[in-house]
């Protein structure tokens, strides 16, 4: 079983971090994982995205062309990736940022006003993590506690407050 996920949006929305968090969680569960960003000058245009795979077997190519899951936080990325999602796949859309509605019937789309929710709940700028919460809830790609463990690994102890707010953001996503 391999799950593949694309995280896409503007630079600064934390999508590379979100991808890394999920991958790290998978690793903690003992799975094979990979993460790869799109890189190079096109980054400068302002978009940033990454591919993550979580698998029971060695990961072949880390580059994902047809994701099972898509987390998307801006309109250009939505347009770019929505049709690449595999039939049966799930898409998590920050509806605070994206007005479009998907017409595909072979995938599940979740419209989450993540940016607003984050703002309203005092975790400004953590829309990415809110969406991760929803991803966990809807897909079970990894366990919630794995993400919690991952946070403890990735974020240095000195910034404990940051861990707290990340956890809060996940909870918000889980709760929608």
């Amino acid at each position, binding site marked *: 079983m391999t799950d593949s996920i694309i995280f896409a949006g503007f630079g600064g929305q934390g999508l590379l971090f979100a991808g890394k968090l999920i991958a790290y969680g998978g690793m903690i569960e003992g799975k094979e994982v990979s993460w790869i960003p799109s890189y190079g*000058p096109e980054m*400068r*245009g*302002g978009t940033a995205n990454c591919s993550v795979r979580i698998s029971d077997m060695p990961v072949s190519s880390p580059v994902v062309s047809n994701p099972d899951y898509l987390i998307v936080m801006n309109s250009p990325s939505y347009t770019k990736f929505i049709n690449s999602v595999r039939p049966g796949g799930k898409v998590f859309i920050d509806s605070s940022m994206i007005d479009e509605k998907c017409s595909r019937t072979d995938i599940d789309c979740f419209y989450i006003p993540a940016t607003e929710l984050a703002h309203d709940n005092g975790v400004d700028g953590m829309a990415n993590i809110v969406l991760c919460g929803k991803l966990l809830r809807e897909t079970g790609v990894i366990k919630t506690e794995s993400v919690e463990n991952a946070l403890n690994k990735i974020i240095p102890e000195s910034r404990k407050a940051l861990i707290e707010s990340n956890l809060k953001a996940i909870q918000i996503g889980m709760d929608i």
Partner: protein
Amino acid sequence: MSVVFRKPDSMADVNTHYCPGCTHGIVHRLICEIIDEMGIEGDTIGICPVGCSVMAYDYFNCDMIEAPHGRAPAVATGVKRSLPDKFVFTYQGDGDLAAIGTAETIHAAARGENITIIFINNTTYGMTGGQMAPTTLPGQVTQTTPYGRDVEKAGYPVKMCEILSQVDGTALAQRVSVDSPKEVQNAKKAIRKAFQIQRDRKGFSIVEVLSTCPTNWGMSPVESLERLRQECIPYFPLGVYKDITAKENSND
């Protein structure tokens, strides 16, 4: 009402790949304005080496060549020696011209090669994601000076106009800025002078343009102009470092 400002003809009508507020675009336009004003689009060959402006071949309507990193002055020499009646300019970043291309720059100048160099000093390697450039200011944080440029380890910034003023073939070495409309107009005058020197076969001309890189400076475009004024200009003083036509032109 008449149109008093519009895109110059020699500038291609396409969207650039530059980050919002990057001053590369301003300098492109100035060059095109001069090309239009001198009516030389059909007689000009532009050369852009690697750097954020590598794709400028799509933005200028004159013939264009992409050069390897740092080698534009050599490529320009090859073109100019083949076509001495054409205008040849290069458009180079600070990493390109003042690091890997140092020898090519200085020797094109020493040869008095009759070409014009537009030199974009944005104190960083823009295209590769913001590493230290030879022009990075002391203390400036970049990807490869994460603790700020320590001149003891990483050396001092290189001042190309100052250096080139010591090279006999240099006809013009001038440093300008594009941080305000006034400076932009000054920059344009300098670029015009450079092209005129080339037309008059007087030798090597270089215009160093202090420029911004909002993306890698981690600032808004407007803040970037401010930094340019507050930090860059004091370190890299604007002015004419050498101009062999200065005397003749002194009553301009």
